[in-house]
């Protein structure tokens, strides 16, 4: 069952192409992370799905209908930006207001309890802490017992404890069969919550697969060691020196280690680790050509479908990572 779908959706703001022929399908029961840097097009895509904006071309469906009609939005939950809560209204009033739009809302006390806001029910939202405001904003997405919830940067700027509370609430919703599409540039958050990740950069879907698969297709490994003198080495995507340790990001850790040995580098304390999603994602977006020079030539190509391509079988991982440009082209 498909709850939300974007089909070859483009969105233009004046001269800026915010989304470029994006396909996205969210099925019932999924928890999908939408990952990308600021300006990548995440919020634009979310605004199209909730009906705040219209695509320039392509088609967006929500529960099989047009998200700009109110009816499909009855099963949708969305969160306001926490800065947008009306400051003079009390917490309980804001919840009641949103609840009035739904046929069978979650009782106020139950919702506030789930988000740890029971004691704040009489407080005006303007007097809440940042974490409390954010929890209230996220709670509003769940008030109408939605089947699909869209969370735009749900925990950015929160402390660890507040983030855990929110994560637990989101996980509980998902465990009961709810569907979640959340955007984040907190990569830890996507790794912690989502099983599927859609990487967006420069308005395009760069990768759409499981968190593990995206990480492995990028194939970036972190090779770190202590060494005094380091020659220039082939195949290094990025290198850093942190606290006396060299950290090299590479697409082929085996070859890099061989090269280190061949070059006679006197390294000690060698470590080879898979990269975090953040590093994988930086590698993907860095490979995207800065101008649109190759885009127009490839009208039909889709995102990387990682699952069909065994990780490690890929001798040029950066090719796949750069948006599915065929290695043979």
């Amino acid at each position, binding site marked *: 069952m498909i709850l939300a779908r974007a089909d070859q959706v483009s969105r233009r703001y004046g001269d800026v192409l915010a989304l470029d022929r994006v396909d996205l399908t969210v099925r019932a029961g999924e928890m999908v992370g939408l990952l990308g840097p600021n300006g990548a097009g995440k919020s634009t895509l979310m605004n199209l799905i909730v009906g705040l904006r219209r695509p320039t071309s392509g088609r967006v469906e929500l529960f099989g209908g047009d998200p700009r009609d109110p009816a499909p939005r*009855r099963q949708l939950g969305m969160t306001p*930006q926490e800065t*947008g809560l*009306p400051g003079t209204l009390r917490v309980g009033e804001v919840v009641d207001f949103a609840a*009035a*739009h739904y046929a069978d809302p979650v009782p106020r006390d139950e919702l506030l309890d789930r988000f740890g806001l029971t004691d704040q029910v009489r407080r005006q939202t303007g007097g809440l802490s940042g974490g409390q405001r954010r929890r209230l904003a996220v709670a*509003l997405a769940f008030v109408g017992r939605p089947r699909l919830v869209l969370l735009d940067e749900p925990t950015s700027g929160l402390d660890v404890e507040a983030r855990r509370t929110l994560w637990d609430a989101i996980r509980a919703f998902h465990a009961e069969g709810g569907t979640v599409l959340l955007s984040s540039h907190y990569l830890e958050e996507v790794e912690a919550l989502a099983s599927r990740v859609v990487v967006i950069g420069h308005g395009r879907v760069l990768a759409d697969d499981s968190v593990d698969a995206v990480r492995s297709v990028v194939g970036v490994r972190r090779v770190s060691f202590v060494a005094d003198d380091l020659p220039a080495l082939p195949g290094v995507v990025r290198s850093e020196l942190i606290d006396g340790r060299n950290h090299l990001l590479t697409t082929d850790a085996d070859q890099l280690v061989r090269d280190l040995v061949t070059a006679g580098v006197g390294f000690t304390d060698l470590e080879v680790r898979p990269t975090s999603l953040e590093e994988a994602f930086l590698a993907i977006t860095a490979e995207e050509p800065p101008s649109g020079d190759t885009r127009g030539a490839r009208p039909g190509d889709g995102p990387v479908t990682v699952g069909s391509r065994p990780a490690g079988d890929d001798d040029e991982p950066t090719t796949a990572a750069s948006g599915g440009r065929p290695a043979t082209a």
Partner: protein
Amino acid sequence: MQLTLVHTRYQLLETVRIPIAVVGSAFFPAAAMLFFVVPFAGKDAVGATYATASMVTFAVMSANIFQYGIGVAEDRAQPWDPYTRTLPAGPGPRLAGRVLAGLVLTYLSLIPVVVIGATLTAAQITPMAFLLAIGTVAVVSVPFTLMGLAIGYSLPSKAAIVVAQIIFFPLAFGGGLLSAPDEAPGFIEVVAPYLPTRGAVELMWATVGDYPARPLPLIMLGVWVVALAMLAVWAYRRDEGRRFS
């Protein structure tokens, strides 16, 4: 319909939580009553009644221009506004709720003027005329509601505050709200019939006394309503296009 009432209630709640906003629109007309009407026209029953009706019109105008002009412009800048559009209701209930709440606040802002008129002046009105006047207030609110909406949807809030202030005083003076019927200075008598305030106040005068409202100001009031409605719709659509298309 029920959602409209929900939106009305929350609009009122938001306003009432900052009571000075309500006091503001009631203050000017009440102060004008105390300083100009009570000492100069207070003893004359007919004059005081007309003067009170003028101040009521004044209050209706300023309440509406300010609450819509500034309120809408401020709301447009808040992320809460787009959030409400993701709820399963169109923009209709929010707009309707805003207008209903605006009408309630307009009536609230009239209370001091009416109380002062009733207690400190010789103004007189029959119960029937009083009920009629309540209806006339709603009619007279229309052009100024539209004017406020046009301002609010076309300007950012800082500009809206200035424009609302610049507009409301000349409209009050030029329409003859601050002078007795047909005793305004000559140039105002020339200009007044073409301003929406004149048609509005003549309707009020005709409701509370036996003032013969003239056709020209009433026709011009109709023209203003149509023109302001077009302007408000244009500004609303432009804003929708900018933020939601």
